């Protein structure tokens, strides 16, 4: 805490020094509300670290449009009501120029009407497809949608000849929305979901649910849609029960810390993830390779902890904001909004973004890579 404050003070002084050199410019205020504590902290924590770190870096390099960036951040504790209050505070009291935040879909959706009315550009870091479909003029998002994850996973299953699956999902926002998307996509792709069970976020044993799936006749593979520690417990129980069907997880667990928790039980499971987890196995001509390697090494050096896909969302959110402000040449909200909508070919950590007035996410399903756990590490499949 004290360290953070010191760091901020130092960053501000440094920024101020640079700014003075340029011209005594007013800082550009970037507002953020994230779930830094509470049940969704594994999203909010790396997101905040990423924002802090790169805003510092940008300021060291002279800021944006000759103005330093200033981060105004509040912790919404994973609660949509507090997210709404803090967003209101960001807009009305702190008068920020743009908001990059919203770790969870609930928080994002609670804030959306507010930013729409106040006409402030808002880049969300949450996944569900409802955030940008239908398109809301002032709301953008950086993660791929859960629908894309479902498409990627079920597509990979189909390629392996699997047509009947068992589904297990968390009852939190992520799992519940992922479950709904999976059921829809499965219907479209002609895959039958024979078993459909859930677990709540604080459950400590999912053996009963998995036994249920195991005893369902005809299941060829199992998919778990959830995040937090739950999927790691599911993975362990899966191994203990000795189920030897192909096992898939969602992008909700795409981090090295999941491997550390699940241990050997994770061997052989597949999941869709951003290439962040396998920077070195990307082919050299992959446009994302350089940027992914850079983000990973910078983050890990700075924070002494493993990168996760989620921090990458914040990286892309911040960079999109910076690009838009630069393209707009000012922080005029409408100009920034329009610039955001017209970003094409920005290669980020999560994928290549091609925004348009009808697509405020700008990613396609291929930006997810299918990875498999082999020998305790990630292996790029396709």
């Amino acid at each position, binding site marked *: *805490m004290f360290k*953070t404050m010191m760091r901020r003070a130092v960053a501000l002084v440094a920024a101020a020094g640079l700014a003075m050199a340029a011209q005594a410019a007013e800082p550009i205020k970037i507002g953020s509300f994230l779930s*830094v*504590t509470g049940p969704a902290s594994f999203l909010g924590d790396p997101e905040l670290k990423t924002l802090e770190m790169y805003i510092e870096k940008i300021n060291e390099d002279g800021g944006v449009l000759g103005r330093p960036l200033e981060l105004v*951040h*509040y*912790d919404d504790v994973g*609660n*949509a*009501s*507090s997210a*709404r*209050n*803090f967003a*209101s*505070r960001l*807009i*009305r*009291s702190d008068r920020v120029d743009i908001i990059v935040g919203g770790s*969870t*879909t*609930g928080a994002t*959706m*609670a804030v*959306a*009407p*507010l930013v729409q*009315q106040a006409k402030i550009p808002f880049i969300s870091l949450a996944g*569900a497809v*409802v955030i940008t479909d239908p398109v809301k003029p002032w709301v953008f998002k950086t993660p791929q949608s859960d629908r894309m994850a479902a498409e990627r996973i079920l597509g990979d299953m189909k390629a392996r000849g699997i047509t009947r699956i068992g589904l297990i999902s968390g*009852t*939190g*926002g992520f799992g*519940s*929305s992922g479950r*709904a998307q999976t059921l829809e996509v499965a219907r479209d792709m002609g895959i039958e979901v024979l078993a459909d069970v859930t677990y709540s976020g604080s459950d400590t044993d999912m053996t009963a649910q998995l036994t249920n799936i195991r005893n369902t006749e005809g299941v060829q593979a199992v998919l778990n849609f959830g995040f937090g520690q739950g999927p790691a417990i599911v993975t362990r129980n899966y191994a203990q029960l000795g189920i030897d069907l192909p096992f898939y997880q969602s992008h909700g667990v795409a981090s090295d810390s999941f491997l550390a928790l699940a241990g050997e039980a994770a061997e052989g499971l597949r999941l869709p993830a951003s290439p962040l987890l396998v920077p070195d196995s990307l082919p050299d001509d992959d446009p994302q390779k350089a940027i992914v390697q850079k983000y990973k090494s910078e983050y890990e050096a700075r924070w002494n902890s493993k990168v996760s896909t989620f921090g990458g969302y914040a990286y892309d959110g911040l960079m999109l904001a910076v690009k838009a402000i630069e393209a707009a040449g000012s922080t005029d909200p409408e100009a920034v909004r329009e610039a955001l909508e017209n970003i094409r070919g920005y290669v980020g950590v999560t994928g290549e973004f091609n925004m348009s007035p009808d697509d405020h996410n700008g990613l396609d399903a291929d930006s997810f890579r299918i990875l498999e756990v082999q020998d305790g590490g990630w292996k790029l499949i396709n």
Partner: protein
Amino acid sequence: MFKRFMQLRLRDLVILAVILFSLPAFLDNPFHYELATQMAIIAATVVGLNLLVGYAGQVSLGHAGFFGLGAYFSAIMTGSYGWSALPALLVGAILVGVIAWIVGRPILRLKGHYLSMATLAVGFIIAIIINNETGLTGGPDGIPVAPFDLFGWELSPFGSYSLLGVELSGSQAWYLFSALVLLLAVWLAQNLIDSQIGRALRSVHGSEVAARVVGVNTAKYKSLVFVISAIYASVMGSLYAHFQGFITPAVAGFDFSIVLITMVVLGGMGSTMGVILGAVVLKLLPQLLADFQELEAVMFGLILMLTMIFMPKGLLPTLQRSIGRRLKKKAEGQA
């Protein structure tokens, strides 16, 4: 003199009105108005809960369940079935009242922690249903709520209105509306407390057996006040949903139940003005502590503990007593 002043309930209402209507002088942007509006709505909820906790001595750890039921009933009926806000609010309140009555009768036979346990279970069951019935409630990611409308007139925090020739923004209009609602809630509660029901309730709080012996039908009064406090929660839940424009199952959750009961105990059980203060303090603290980032939880817990250790009767009763004592001393000094 001071003591008599404090005892007059009408004075409480006047003081509250003066505070509520002079507050806008200190609010300088829509965010402040929004916060004040939420405080008023939550305070009214807590005034209802206080009837149960402070006067009947029954602790509910599931009150957010009723709040959430009201909120979701309004959200769903106005959103998916095209109802108007007022009928949705009223029907929701009646429904919640009936539910509270049905579950209340057996629950209220229980004593002490068992009663708390049962209310906790009811709250949890409601929250689980709201969370799981995704088709109806939007599930864990929440559901948008239409603005509050009254006879074709819509009250949206984003609108603009004119009242007696004064231009009001949507958030100012909502604040005034919620302030009136809070005054009404307090007035109703005080009438209830001064009525025969109130006296019967206080006798239940003192000693239930004694109350029963002197012929008070304790079961009837206990379920009555349980129903009334649930209706308070349901109505306020409906208003809260319309004001927020978006709700998630957290409004019905255990955490929120704990927040509500904490507001009552922190402010001062049995003191209507006290529990309003409790609501204001607990609603304000997260905003005040927000800048402490990682230390927020530690400070919040510490403040809660210390307040309760050193002011076990709650903020307002303790303050009143110490002011009263000081005045008395002063009076004695002069004499």
